[in-house]
């Protein structure tokens, strides 16, 4: 890929629409579109279906579907008298209105709603096809639907009798993720059908004409680009309005944030819920135990979407739909008995299990465990899809087989009798490159389990902890974290919300985006930031170790002294060493894109323009073609683009192009005053309308200044409070001078022990010359260094075991009265920089209509003296200042008023006559 200018490490997973990179956000669904509810009200059971106007007694439905005898229903429910008792009021209800036969029931339903039989056949539980799976011979055979209803009834009654049998709505196994493919297929279906309708309409119109001149050709009438445009629109706006499927969703796509590689990666693993976020519920926001290994426990935003928006964990795989047919035939081969051959009594017989495939009752099996094992063996052998899950639910006496799309699953090492199938020689082959992950999967050493099947497995965290019953072993404990949380070293030592903060902050850190980042900008990314001087972290984190993320780092190793200094470090501010900044610490490059175009008109077009050299300074950076040349320094008010525009763009058709009069048009650069940027690159391209487009990439290298935001990898952000000369900084016995000073008050309340361990580990790493690792939960497996070992290394190199150094004050020259905790910590520069935010104005632009000062920094707007500011001024007693602010500075307006009539004088725009200008007097309106 690299010869083509693409980054070989780019993970993909996004769409490029109209020059923007858009990632589609996965959404988690709980329910499918058509709902069938069986509800108990006042001890009677009803069916609630949208197609029916009102709720229908369940026994009526059963009778309408041909199950006329109450005994049969009770028999299918099970022998236990509890169930019969619960159903009794419903039976009595049905009998009391005198409905006993199918005909009566259908007539009753028909009275309420037209076409009741059709509704029952097609809309009610539509996944059960009437006539059975294999014998569509007899129409209107409702037996299977009856069975399904009875199973539903029984489940409901179980929940009434025993609260434990209730399903958990937030359980991940009950959720399905909707991926871009599903969304696009819906969109496509809608667009395609709309197009067909439109084509049909057009063709009908033409064919209905009595006489046609040319031969009819359908292909002439196919609408061009309607599907393309529709797809493009939905992807670029993120609005999924598919009225055909009653789907109106907003924000389905997001622009990929290309600040750092991990940030971009993180935005592609995002999962957002379908229901609105304003609901004040705690259930769906809470951390679900079933989330283990599937969704990251740390990575969630703060605020209203907290806990609702989730991120995938490292190894998670989201399944796609798989063919059901082969699985059904396999099941029957392995002894699943078709329901139609069974009597009602046997439905809930305790000796056998129901087999359910994707919510479809296939039949019964007498030896469910054996059946499940056979199916699993087939899956491991690759005869069934890798992501088919077989789950034996002993409580419900069911075996669930799932092959549908949208389930989350993750790989685990298979263990037989507690012995992992992966042996040392496998790992050696992996290291030698003979094997890869897929070969492990193919040979049945590893398999994917979904959340439901995990319930049947006994998973050991480490191989050593496996017992005889263990069926699986975790691949690596840190895989429960997502990409962003995996960046944190020693996250398991931190207070949990800190990791959450870091996950949000890691996406704002500036870093290398991709290998092709210097080429990227032509794809319109508005502000890419990159750091010219990135380091690898000395203390590595989990994903940093496994991923090749290191090449795309997003920070620098700063030697941090944890001490108080100068008072400019309160409230998390950091004190920075000026010499470190001189030497390049924390510098970043900000890219800005500005574009210009050569317009095409009817028969004229804009022309290149050669600048006249002897003119003023502003055009100095222009090349002979009127475009700023790359490498030139560009300042505020500099002209970067000059062209010749025809004065009359409509143009008379007659005149020769060379005779059309032109005027020079210029575009000037608007940057901050005193800031010197550089033209990085100039790209020429043609746009949709075939105009020549010019894109200028303006690069600005920034060194940190007071107010820029920095953060370590532990949710500890802080602004630069002051910049101090190196000679004023403390120095250690070995002459080490810190790059920045952090206030120790940041530690006690935050409890980011991981940061301290990172410091220790990095310090040891620097002194012994190897990376130290800080993978999550990595100490037992050796993927994270223990503090004891780190301390030992430190001592070996003459440091104190606790990382505290004897420091001399750079100001007095005397030793400090405490040992200072000092060492390297990986620091990220966040995208919030003062240069983009600082704003002040005196006189300035005003709005045209109201004459009030404009709003916002981008329009050089005024700063509002609001209610609270006013209160301060009142309290302070500066009444003249309030008067000035409120009356004079904002809305004064001078008018001319006639002293006699009192009307305002004005100049008539058309006749240029002055109206009411006798006896004029000036008047200040305010």
């Amino acid at each position: 890929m690299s010869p083509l200018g693409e980054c070989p490490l780019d993970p993909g997973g996004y769409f490029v629409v109209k020059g923007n990179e858009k990632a589609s956000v996965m959404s988690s669904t709980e329910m499918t579109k058509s709902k069938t509810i069986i509800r108990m009200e006042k001890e009677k059971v009803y069916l609630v279906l949208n197609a029916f106007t009102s709720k229908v007694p369940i026994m009526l439905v059963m009778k309408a579907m041909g199950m006329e005898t109450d005994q049969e229903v009770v028999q299918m429910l099970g022998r236990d008298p509890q169930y019969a008792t619960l159903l009794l009021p419903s039976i009595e209800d049905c009998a009391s209105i005198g409905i006993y036969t199918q005909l009566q029931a259908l007539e009753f339903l028909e009275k309420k709603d037209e076409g009741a039989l059709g509704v029952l056949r097609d809309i009610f539980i539509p996944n059960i096809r009437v006539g059975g799976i294999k014998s569509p011979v007899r129409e209107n055979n409702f037996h299977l639907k009856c069975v399904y209803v009875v199973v539903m009834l029984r489940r409901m009654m179980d929940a009434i009798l025993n609260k434990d049998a209730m399903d958990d709505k937030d359980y991940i196994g009950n959720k399905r993720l909707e991926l871009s493919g599903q969304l696009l297929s819906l969109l496509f279906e809608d667009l395609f059908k709309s197009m067909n309708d439109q084509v049909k309409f057009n063709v009908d119109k033409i064919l209905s004409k009595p006489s046609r001149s040319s031969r009819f050709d359908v292909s002439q009438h196919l609408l061009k680009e309607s599907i393309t445009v529709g797809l493009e629109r939905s992807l670029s706006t993120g609005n999924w309005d598919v009225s055909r499927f009653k789907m109106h969703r907003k924000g389905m796509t997001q622009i990929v944030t290309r600040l750092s590689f991990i940030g971009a990666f993180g935005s592609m693993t995002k999962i957002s819920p379908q229901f609105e976020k304003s609901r004040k519920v705690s259930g769906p926001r809470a951390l679900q135990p079933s989330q283990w290994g599937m969704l990251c426990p740390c990575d969630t935003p703060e605020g209203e979407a907290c806990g609702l928006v989730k991120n995938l964990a490292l190894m998670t795989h989201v399944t796609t739909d798989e063919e059901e047919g082969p699985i059904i035939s396999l099941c029957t081969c392995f002894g699943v008995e078709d329901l139609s051959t069974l009597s009602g009594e046997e439905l809930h017989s305790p000796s056998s299990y129901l087999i359910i495939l994707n919510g479809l009752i296939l039949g019964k099996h007498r030896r469910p465990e054996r059946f499940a094992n056979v199916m699993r063996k087939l899956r491991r052998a690759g005869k069934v899809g890798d992501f088919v899950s077989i789950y034996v639910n002993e409580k419900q006496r069911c075996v669930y087989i799932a092959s549908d799309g949208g389930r989350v699953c993750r790989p685990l090492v298979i263990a037989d009798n507690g012995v992992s199938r992966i042996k040392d020689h496998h790992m050696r082959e992996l290291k030698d490159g003979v094997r890869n992950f897929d070969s492990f999967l193919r040979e049945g050493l590893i398999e994917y389990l979904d959340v439901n099947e995990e319930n049947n497995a006994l998973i050991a965290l480490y191989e050593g902890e496996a017992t005889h019953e263990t069926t699986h072993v975790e691949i690596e404990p840190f895989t429960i974290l997502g990409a962003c949380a995996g960046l944190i070293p020693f996250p398991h030592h931190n207070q949990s919300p800190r990791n959450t903060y870091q996950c949000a902050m890691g996406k704002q850190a500036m870093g290398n985006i991709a290998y092709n980042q210097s080429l990227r900008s032509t794809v319109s990314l508005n502000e890419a930031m990159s750091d010219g001087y990135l380091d690898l972290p000395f203390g590595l984190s989990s994903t940093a170790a496994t991923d090749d993320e290191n090449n795309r780092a997003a920070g620098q190793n700063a030697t941090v002294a944890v001490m108080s200094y100068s008072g400019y470090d309160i409230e998390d501010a950091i004190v920075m060493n000026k010499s470190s900044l001189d030497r390049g610490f924390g510098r970043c490059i900000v890219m800005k894109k500005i574009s210009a175009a050569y317009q095409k008109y009817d028969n004229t077009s804009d022309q290149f323009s050669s600048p006249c050299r002897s003119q003023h300074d502003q055009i100095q950076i222009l090349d002979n073609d009127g475009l700023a040349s790359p490498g030139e320094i560009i300042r505020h008010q500099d002209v970067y683009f000059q062209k010749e525009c025809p004065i009359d763009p409509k143009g008379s058709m007659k005149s020769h192009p060379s005779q059309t009069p032109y005027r020079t048009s210029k575009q000037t650069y608007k940057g901050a005053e005193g800031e010197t940027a550089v033209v990085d690159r100039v790209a020429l391209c043609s746009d949709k309308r075939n105009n020549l487009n010019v894109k200028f990439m303006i690069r600005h290298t920034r060194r940190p200044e007071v107010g820029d935001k920095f953060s370590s990898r532990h949710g500890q952000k802080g602004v630069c409070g002051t910049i101090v000369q190196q000679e004023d900084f403390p120095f250690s016995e070995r002459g080490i001078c810190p790059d920045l000073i952090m206030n120790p008050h940041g530690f006690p309340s935050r409890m980011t022990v991981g940061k301290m361990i990172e410091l220790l580990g990095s310090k040891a790493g620097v002194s012994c010359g190897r990376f130290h690792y800080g993978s999550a939960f990595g100490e037992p497996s050796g993927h994270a260094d223990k503090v004891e070992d780190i301390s030992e290394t430190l001592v070996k190199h003459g440091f104190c075991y606790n990382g505290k150094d004897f420091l001399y004050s750079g100001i007095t020259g005397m030793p400090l009265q405490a040992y200072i905790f000092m060492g390297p910590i990986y620091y990220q520069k966040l995208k919030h920089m003062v240069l983009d935010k600082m704003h002040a104005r005196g006189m300035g632009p005003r709005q045209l209509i109201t004459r009030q000062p404009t709003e916002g920094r981008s329009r050089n707007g005024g700063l509002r003296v609001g209610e609270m500011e006013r209160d301060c001024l009142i309290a302070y007693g500066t009444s003249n200042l309030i008067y000035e602010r409120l009356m004079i500075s904002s809305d004064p307006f001078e008018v001319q008023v006639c002293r006699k009539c009192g009307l305002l004088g004005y100049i008539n725009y058309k006749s240029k006559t002055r109206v009411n200008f006798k006896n004029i007097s000036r008047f200040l309106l305010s």
Partner: protein
Amino acid sequence: MPKIPLWDLPELPKNQLPPHLYLQKTRVFCNNDAPTHTENIHYSGAYAALGVDNSLRLDEFRKNFKVKVIKLNEEDMEFDLIGIDASIANAFRRILISELPTMAIEKVLVANSSSVVQDEVLAQRLGLVPIKVDPRLFDYMSENDVPNQKNSIVFKLHYKCDRGSGERRTVYSHDLKWLPFGSEYVLPTESSSDSTSKPKTYTSFTSSQDSLPEFANNPITVTPGIIISKLGPGQEIELEAHAVKGVGKTHAKWSPVATSWYRMLPEVILLQDIEDDDAHKLVKKCPVNVFDIEDVGRERATVARPRSCTLCRECIREPGWEEKVALRRVKDHFIFTIESTGALPPEVLFTEAVKILEDKCERVITELS
């Protein structure tokens, strides 16, 4: 306790502090938890109640002050400053870092740069390359000065990686070529005008720098071997770098030292006799081998190399050991280290620093009088 009349108490020796106060005055106690008595006592009457004069006497200072050079080579120097106050030693350190002038590249005129390194970054990297030239031979260039042979040095860097070679090439600092005649780039405004006279360039050197006696057989070079950039096939760097004189206060590139610092002389005292097993334990504890064992009938620990103590506090980490071993720092004995960047040898740097401090003192004296 029997009552002793005041006049029967033993006479305190005159002009001498009691031992514990003397220790507190002259030593920093590096305890396990925190260093104590770190501050110097400057007030002349601090011990007046004891009849001890604490004022600083010049003749005393002259008698006691000693400089001992431990290590000296082209780049580094380690020497002891004995009998001096921390504030003065610190002043030298501060001056060395920030007030000694050197030459450093300040302006880079990029004619062509197609490498991946951005121009600003390239310029910043060039700025940090130490130039091996005595800054005392040059003048400062003030705002409205024109660059001439007395205040600037011009280097040229032209490096190209051929397209056909298919290899990346590294640009090193020693690829910078000294231009003794000044800039070769012609000012754009002058290019069109009279062609007869010498075209005006970015510098106005009246004579060549290599005609000066200092540089005649001694061309100006920079520290070699520093990677400046890497070029891919077809990429090229062509630029001119103008170096001027400046001080480290303005920018770290003008700092003549990589760093310079001091540490106070470590003093390790065994408060008790440590013998046999304990002695072996103690020797094993120290990662820098401060302790040794001497055999005087029984094995006893001795302090053999106190100077190498890095203050890791391993020896006093375990409870109970703080009573046996005392780690101290001598307050008026500084082990001073200067790591020069190469412009001047470290010993010259130090004498220059002394001169600057002298100047400053003189200025204060003249201002006061």
